[in-house]
């Protein structure tokens, strides 16, 4: 484990009053955000650091939408497809994404409500909000990434 990661782990553990269980999801979130996935090696390291059995870590991390064991080459754009977004054309955007899959510089995934219904159709990229999406905006985004 690199020193900077170890420092960060210690910092998280300290913030949560040295409670390893309370620190588990925050540490998993940190690795996920840094590396885009959580590798088997990292799980071993986390297990050793927090003294929590590996199988328990697997159990937790496979439960949540935003934690992943799979390495991804590209960033993931989350598109909400719940009622308020559907009413504002989320389906057309998803269709465009599906049809142009090969041309995209990012992956995309349908997700559930992200609390941006007043800016529907909405999405998240790097956990930052994308409001009032349109096919035009998706095209622009694709060029920027």
């Amino acid at each position: 484990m690199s020193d900077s990661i170890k420092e960060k782990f210690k910092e998280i553990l300290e913030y949560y009053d040295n409670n390893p269980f309370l620190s588990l999801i925050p540490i998993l979130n940190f690795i996920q955000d840094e590396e885009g996935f959580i590798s088997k090696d990292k799980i071993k390291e986390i297990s050793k650091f927090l003294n929590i059995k590996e199988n328990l870590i697997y159990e937790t991390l496979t439960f949540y939408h935003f934690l992943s064991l799979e390495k991804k080459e590209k960033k993931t754009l989350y598109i909400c497809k719940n009622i308020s977004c559907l009413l504002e054309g989320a389906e057309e955007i998803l269709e465009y994404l599906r049809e142009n899959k090969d041309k995209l510089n990012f992956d995309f995934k349908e997700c559930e409500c992200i609390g941006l219904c007043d800016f529907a159709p909405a999405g998240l990229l790097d956990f930052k909000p994308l409001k009032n999406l349109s096919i035009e905006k998706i095209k622009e985004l694709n060029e920027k990434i």
Partner: protein
Amino acid sequence: MKKSETLLIKKKYAENIDEYIQKGGFLSLKKVLGDRIPPEKVIEEVKKSGLRGRGGAGFPTGLKWSFIPKDGEKKFLICNADEGEPGTFKDREILLYAPYLLIEGMIISSYAIQAEVSYIYLRKEYKWIYDRIYKAIKESEEIGFLGKNILGSSFNHRIKIFVGAGAYICGEETALLESMEGKKGFPRLKPPYPANCGLFGYPTVINNVETLSNIPIIIEIGGDNYSKIGVPKSTGTRLISLSGIVKKKGVYEIEQGKITVREIIEDLGEGIKENYHLLGVIPGGISAPPLLPDEIDITYDFESIIEKGSMSGSGAIIVFGYKEDKKRELLKLLKSAVKFFKEESCGKCTPCREGTWAINDILEKIEKRETQIGEGIEIIDVLHKRMKGLCACPLGESCAIITESFLKKYSDVLK
């Protein structure tokens, strides 16, 4: 006459801590700690106010606090900022624009139950708001509203943020506790309730963002005065997330029981968007059965909506309808709602895990016209009976209730 908003919470919106203090911020905290008001008196005041939880269930807040045992060394307060009920975004507004009000509310509430540490469970979807809240906490620490011996009293308090990892079910309070304990978000069987056995087994109160933000206001104006706002069983204001086919979507603050659902749509939302036909309104997030256009002349409060067979839940009003002659598109909306429950069922209880998939299958068949609507309703009714009261939380049951209700109310549209 056009109805407008009634502002209590929105009045406390502030860019930074100075602005909040200028608006009378932290005076309630000063009153509680400065006047040495005993914790029981604070709970009493909240009971008098009639405040009910704003997260969905509408449980009386003061009563919830009074279940916390007086003895015992450690207690926790958790602010539930995991609003995930589709259509809900009102807590986002408080977290962004009134974080100081929330912080003040959390300190007073923690004092009432004598908790030294409290947590904000922030949904990962709102990670972009993390810095805003973190900064507000830091500012409050620097001024001395958080830390040791707050305002010269013997009360110590710290607030920490915990970011979730994506799971609707973690908004359910016991699933939230499991998640904080590093586990998958499985709701616990109750009893014991969190007030006795909460985070790591310690007595814990879990309150919604908006609920906690009402506390400084109650202390400021007094419980009795607060109870006169709104109607007897639904006191105070509520933040409404208005979305769907209205012209002006957004978060509005309304006085409970004083404005009808139709007025919310027409006066605050400025009516239905052009070229759209109104089909109905979901009054409290997608777990709430829909109201038909002729059922929306009721006031917005807990009781009136329950009387109509639905609920105000998290205060999310979704106005839905169709363009041109695409009435049957309604099925798409219903399918997305059912798919939501199917995806978000945590898998702990069999009736929900299997039942939500079965309901999804029935809808697929109705879409392909392989199953008649009447037949679908019958099957869902059987499924509903096998879920009712048999699961650790109401997720699966909600799925059955709304599907049945949609199919019954819109059988003509969906034919």
